[in-house]
């Protein structure tokens, strides 16, 4: 899993963070012919959000910016096993957004229009069709349901394994349990990083450190929007298939799906002060349980196997911060991810292109790192998250 040789003295590009963002980027850079890359991670394989997420691949949202970006990523997921040479187990089982309030039904109507404009396949399900797609749902509570047939889930262990193997096969040097302790610059350009006493020179550096992004930006001496935020999830004891597609219960800020090993995995948001810890707490578990019980009554007797927390980096508009950092030449950022698992294939492709050729893809441009300074946030009303107020 880990390269045991001594660290090199220089690298063409250093990526800080070997989660799915760092590995997807390294893979795409290798495909563009970049050699002698180094990926450094302070934690263990899958220890960060890339091993703790809900594994959902959602290919469309309610804003055109998010929809174009994630639709492309979803498209890439479908061919990813072939591309990486390992099974990412992307399951195209569909993603159903369920509304209960009438205001949410109206949002889903508007969302459908956005999808049409972006050329995305999606449909509002009639009650009869919803019964076929989600027979176990408490249909009496539903006001509207929008279904994305091309979306689905991909277990993070499979995706992370596949990316790591594909990177290793292309000679990318990946080091876990290797913490970057300083970032050096000279004459306004990145010059290298330190790992304790060891110095590694490089003129190109990518920060893909998830919840550690602000701390890493500080090491580089540049500002970065956002803050670390705890998200929680839980898994139920397995049963044979009960819930087909992935499900977002929009009015409960709850997402869920039944994994290929039978566990129902998901989480609901509660209004709490942002927590900077990996320890799990009680209110999210209780809210998630309540959502399950009311929306899927057959889960009421099910037992909770485990709950856990993960840390993500949240930007002001919940969108990724992706691209070159304006304040330091040679510095690139892939941060602000709360749908990072779904977005990784597209993010890696776009950012690799930007690093190698300087060309910024139109689908990536709205998520520029400095968009808040320029007062250009991306408004996305259809996500299952909120800021604490």
């Amino acid at each position, binding site marked *: *899993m*880990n390269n045991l040789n001594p660290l090199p003295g220089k690298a063409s590009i250093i990526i800080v963070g070997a989660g799915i963002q760092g590995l997807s980027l390294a893979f795409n850079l290798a495909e563009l012919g970049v050699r002698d890359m180094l990926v450094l991670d*302070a934690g*263990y*394989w*899958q*220890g960060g959000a890339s*091993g703790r997420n809900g594994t959902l691949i959602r290919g469309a949202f309610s804003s055109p910016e998010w929809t174009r970006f994630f639709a492309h990523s979803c498209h890439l997921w479908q*061919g990813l*096993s*072939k591309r990486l040479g*390992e*099974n990412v*187990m*992307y399951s195209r089982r569909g993603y159903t957004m369920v509304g209960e309030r009438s205001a949410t039904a109206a949002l889903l109507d508007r969302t459908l229009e956005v999808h049409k404009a972006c050329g995305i396949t999606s449909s509002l399900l009639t009650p009869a069709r919803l019964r076929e797609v989600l027979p*176990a749902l408490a249909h009496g509570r539903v006001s509207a349901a929008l279904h994305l047939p091309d979306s689905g889930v*991909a277990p993070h*262990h*499979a995706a992370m*394994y596949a990316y790591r193997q594909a990177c290793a096969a292309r000679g990318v040097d990946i080091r876990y349990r290797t913490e970057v302790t300083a970032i050096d610059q000279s004459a306004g350009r990145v010059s290298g990083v330190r790992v304790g006493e060891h110095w590694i020179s490089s003129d190109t550096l990518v920060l893909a450190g998830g919840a550690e992004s602000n701390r890493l930006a500080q090491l580089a001496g540049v500002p970065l929007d956002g803050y670390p935020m705890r998200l929680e999830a839980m898994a*139920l*004891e*397995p*049963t*044979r*298939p009960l819930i087909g597609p992935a499900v977002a219960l929009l009015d409960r800020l709850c997402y869920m799906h*039944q*994994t*290929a*090993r*039978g566990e129902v995995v998901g989480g609901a948001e509660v*209004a*709490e*002060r942002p927590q*900077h810890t*990996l*320890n*799990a*707490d*009680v*209110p999210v*578990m*209780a*809210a998630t*349980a*309540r959502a399950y*019980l009311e929306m899927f*009554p*057959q*889960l*009421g*007797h*099910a*037992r*909770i*196997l*485990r*709950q*856990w927390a993960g*840390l993500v980096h949240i930007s002001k508009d919940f969108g990724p911060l992706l691209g070159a950092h304006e304040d330091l030449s040679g510095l690139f950022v892939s941060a602000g991810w709360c749908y990072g698992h779904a977005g990784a294939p597209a993010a890696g492709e776009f950012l690799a292109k930007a690093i190698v050729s300087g060309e910024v893809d139109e689908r990536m441009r709205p998520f520029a790192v400095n968009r808040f300074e320029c007062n250009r946030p991306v408004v996305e009303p259809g996500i299952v998250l909120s800021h604490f107020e």
Partner: protein
Amino acid sequence: MSNGSLRLERASTQVLEFFWNGRAVQGRQGESLATALLANGIRTLAWSRKSHRPLGYSGSYVTGVLARVDGVPNVRLDLVPVAVGARVEMQNCWPVPGFDLLRLSRLIPASWIQGGFEHTNLVPSGTALFQRWEAILAFLAGVAKPAERSGEVPVPMARHLSADVLVIGGGPAGCAAANDAVAAGRSVVLVTRGHSLARYVRAAGHARPTLDERVQLVSGVEVFGAYREGELLLAAPHDPAQGALALEADEVILASGRRACPPVVPGMWLPGVMDVRTALIMAHEQSVAPGARVVVVGNGDQEAVASRLRELGVTVVAARPVADLRRVVGRSRVTAALFARSVACDAVVHAGPWLADASLTFQSRAEGLLQLREQRQSRLREVGSVMEADQLLPVAACSRHKTLLCPCFDVSDHEVEALLAQGITDLEVIKRLTSCGMGPCQGQPCWDALRALVSARSGIALAGLARPTLRPPRRALSVAQAAGLAPVVEPLQ
């Protein structure tokens, strides 16, 4: 014992008839479903997930006692008393328990299912075939049919309990600590998993400890998680119709004792192997013997356990040190225990090695942004045997006989050795590559077995191998019980 039955002479004569896979079975008043089935000679109650190995009532591996009871899947048979007319059905069978085609999965080569169904590379995603393949995997991995439709399950409201001192564990150490605290004028709540105090100590033939009547006793409740730096503990009654408990106290005293963990030798998963606590309590309270010919292994107390079992009417054929046990022999149940020579038996009771359950201590002291580790002070204090150092788990030498580290998910020593050969020794990574300890027991005791094996094979000291994060609630809590916690535990503001 009479007529080859495992029921001892003191057994209740009041017969309660229930159904096992549609067949009428006679239980006795006071027995649990698991005990009643064992007393009827039914030792295999469940099947492991990948290779369909038989599993039974062991006290160590929860999967062995999970079955469908009256339409509800994954009910713990060792916690449900026999009731007239109960319909108990085996899970992980298809199409029916009597004609189970899933047993053919034992013929699948181990290398094909390494890491579990969910790590397969046989059919890559991106094709229509994958979707069908995944549906089959989900069916196999799911093990149990979902619950029957019966409308919304009522939410049992949680309760909040607070006191100056919370004592967890109703054994002699817990009772003594509670008595001391109450004598010092403090309010005390004592929570115990059993339906009465000190079940194990009494089963072992010792006197019942006294508990000051000013102590508030809450029994039949499992404390499953410590939250908020150990300031909030959650507990759930074994009865799913009862609400969960949120517990708060200025001081938390952990007196949960230790438990016997299966040594890492081949065959320990077989139906017929039982830990000493389960065996003694079953023989003492329910008057059923673990087997007709029992071998006891232990870390020094095997002779005492053997003579106590004999007092209770159980036939013990040998008592040996656990370190001498090379293998438990049998195909679908225990037929012998192999030491330097083989001893024919139908049950093995292991009394040791003794380890403490580290969950609550870990959760109340855990901190870290990259990985949770015990590194914070908490208000949790340990008393009694839980304070003693964990004993080493004996690890059998490499052999062609597989040792299962995680019987529920069929994770074997061979599988982990293949990862060690690639230089992977991080237990968090091994967990994610094999699913070891991700089943119903959530790594207890599997991660101790994994840790002992990795240490023995790699030469890394045990202290250098942190257990994977011990996550609550380890199936102690149902969805309905969790929903009842919402009004009781406020989000942090």
